[in-house]
């Protein structure tokens, strides 16, 4: 496809002809590619013989999508994009005042989240709200919190950690085991789970102090697997693959309980009808508070010497040392702080599921959390939150798309395509915004006259 670059010269009918040609070409290529993969299918029949199924209809759909897509791309979409680019560059650079929504995005988002359960209850009723509060609200917020925690390690300190789920697991098992063995409450174990996870963060930190980039990533990956394998094989304590079940529920600071039999049962105390929705709403606010705590601590730390040292460490380790920064303690605190929030999220996870098993802490989880951080833009809290909503919310949404069964037949289960779409979305985002949704770093310090200076730069066009 050598003629990709010179789109300017062709115009009008010439363009359509070329688009047709390229469309046919793309169709032929995809026919060649898919004829064996899609057009033919081998299955075993009841007598254990291989049977060749022919799926020409499906192959036709694939080829048609490729051909029509290419045609539309060349004939309509690309000229329009180029026209827009041309008009954008022709427009003089003006000082753009950010809209009210953009400026106050985080405040609006927090306000929305605070009323979200009530909106869900109002629209779908108490029982109907379960799905929206639990599957969407809590599920997304867990990942937001995990990604914000990992962001401290990866986004701020620049230490690529592929085993973050290990700390999540430490937190979850800390709560699960300690609450069952010693009957301690969630509120006592939440800080303890964080401390234990931070402790494991330091244990991981020591051997990897001298490692960077790829090497660091491999060791952290191994660490994540070690924790998982210990959980599987140390059956006396963890019950191995069976997991720990019957984990006690959290209570509202010990005042109201969510156990139906308890005398201080929440619904009874407020004279409400019995429903599991209240517990989910409580959990929603709990994870919201934990996530906001993570964000608050991150924002505060970035303005403090340790946070600035993390960011400087990401930028240049040698320069850091020559400025008198102890890179050993700086790295260890980054690992410990990130791990601590992973531990908080883990103990929340255990309380929410009531059941933990090593299944939940596979490498894929680490990969998803890391990709949320990268897609959101490393270091940017807002970007990461958006990425978590898109990625986790998107995959949850797939479960809801039952109408697709009408098109693809009753065997079609959209959530099986989750990873395919997830991967595709990542590729698209990385092409479109290589540094993530919010790629620019917000400075943490200014002189008082900053406004005047920065606006004079905008008019100069950044000199």
């Amino acid at each position, binding site marked *: 496809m050598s003629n990709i670059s010179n789109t300017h010269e062709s115009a009008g009918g010439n363009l359509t002809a070329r688009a047709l040609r390229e469309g046919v070409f793309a169709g032929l290529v995809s026919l060649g590619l898919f004829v064996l993969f899609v057009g033919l299918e081998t299955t075993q029949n009841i007598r254990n013989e291989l049977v060749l199924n022919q799926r020409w209809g499906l192959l036709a759909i694939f080829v048609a999508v490729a051909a029509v897509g290419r045609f539309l791309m060349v004939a309509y979409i690309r000229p329009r994009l180029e026209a827009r680019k041309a008009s954008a560059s022709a427009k003089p650079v003006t000082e753009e005042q950010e809209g009210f929504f953009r400026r106050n995005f985080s405040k609006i988002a927090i306000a929305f989240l605070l009323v979200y359960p009530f909106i869900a209850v109002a629209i779908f009723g108490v029982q109907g709200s379960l799905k929206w509060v639990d599957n969407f609200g809590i599920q997304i917020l867990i990942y937001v919190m995990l990604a914000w925690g990992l962001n401290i390690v990866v986004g701020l300190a620049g230490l690529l950690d592929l085993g973050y789920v290990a700390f999540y697991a430490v937190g979850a098992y800390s709560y699960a085991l300690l609450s069952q063995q010693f009957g301690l409450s969630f509120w006592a174990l939440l800080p303890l789970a964080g401390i234990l996870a931070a402790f494991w963060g330091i244990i991981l930190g020591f051997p990897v102090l001298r490692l960077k980039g790829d090497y660091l990533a491999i060791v952290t990956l191994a660490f994540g697997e070690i924790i998982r394998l210990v959980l599987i094989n140390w059956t006396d304590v963890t019950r191995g693959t069976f997991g720990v079940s019957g984990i006690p529920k959290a209570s509202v600071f010990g005042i109201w309980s969510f156990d139906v039999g308890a005398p201080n049962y929440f619904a009874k105390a407020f004279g409400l009808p019995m429903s599991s929705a209240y517990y989910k709403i409580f959990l929603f606010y709990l994870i919201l508070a934990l996530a906001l705590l993570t964000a608050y601590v991150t924002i505060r730390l970035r303005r403090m010497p340790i946070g600035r*040292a993390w960011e*400087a460490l990401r*930028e240049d380790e040698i*320069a850091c040392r*020559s400025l008198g920064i102890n890179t050993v303690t700086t790295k260890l605190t980054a690992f410990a702080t990130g791990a601590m929030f992973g531990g908080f999220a883990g103990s929340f996870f255990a309380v929410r599921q009531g059941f933990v098993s090593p299944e939940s802490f596979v490498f894929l989880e680490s990969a998803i959390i890391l990709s949320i951080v990268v897609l959101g833009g490393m270091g940017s809290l807002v970007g990461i939150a958006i990425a978590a909503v898109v990625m986790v919310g998107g995959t949850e949404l797939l479960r809801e798309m039952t109408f697709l069964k009408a098109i693809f037949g009753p065997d079609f289960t959209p959530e099986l395509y989750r990873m395919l779409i997830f991967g595709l979305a990542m590729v698209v985002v990385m092409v479109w915004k290589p540094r993530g949704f919010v790629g620019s770093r917000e*400075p943490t*310090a200014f*002189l008082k006259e900053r406004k005047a200076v920065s606006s004079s730069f905008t008019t100069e066009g950044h000199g």
Partner: protein
Amino acid sequence: MSDALLSVSAVETYYGNIRALAGVNVEVNKGEIVSLIGANGAGKSTLMMTICGSPQARSGTITFDGEDITRLPTHMIARRRIAQSPEGRRIFPRMTVYENLQMGASLDNLKYFDEDVEKIFTLFPRLKERQSQRGGTLSGGEQQMLSIGRALMARPKLLLLDEPSLGLAPLIVKGIFDAIKVLNEEQGLTVFLVEQNAFAALKLSHRAYVMVNGQVTMSGSGKELLANPEVRAAYLEGGRH
């Protein structure tokens, strides 16, 4: 001898089995500008890095202000108030100029920051104009100013400059060398300078050392070395800026 702020004696540094410094003796007295000149690969930057403890010297001693710092880790050496503007400048590219300067002041936890940042801005007015710009978007000369400024924020007793003229236009080099001179004359700052640009360095310095193959082969005042025919032949003729 009594006045020596930094003294490097019989220092040998190795990269694996390769000897990069073969018994180097260098002294820097209080209030002096001392420069170290030499060809590529002579070991100039290695000496600078060895003073900072990365890599550490295999034998010999480095004394700073009466204290043996040979075996201290880099950050502890920096806390003795030896500030360095490293080779290749090594500013923090995604942080703003202002934040870069803050990083320089982290030893005192920003106690003197406001006072010192004004001094830096008077010395390098360009940095004031660029203060909210990201370090990585600055020009080479501005980055060098920032690197020196960041080192100065630590209130150093000794400033180590590694190739401040590297890749910069002659006019900008002159500006930076003038600033070093001002710092030395007005504030009595001690400067140890590694330079390939021998002419500019020798003109600026009180004393200088010439390094060849990991050894100091000549030393003397800046003027002496400028007049020395060997030095002229090796480092100055044809290379004049």
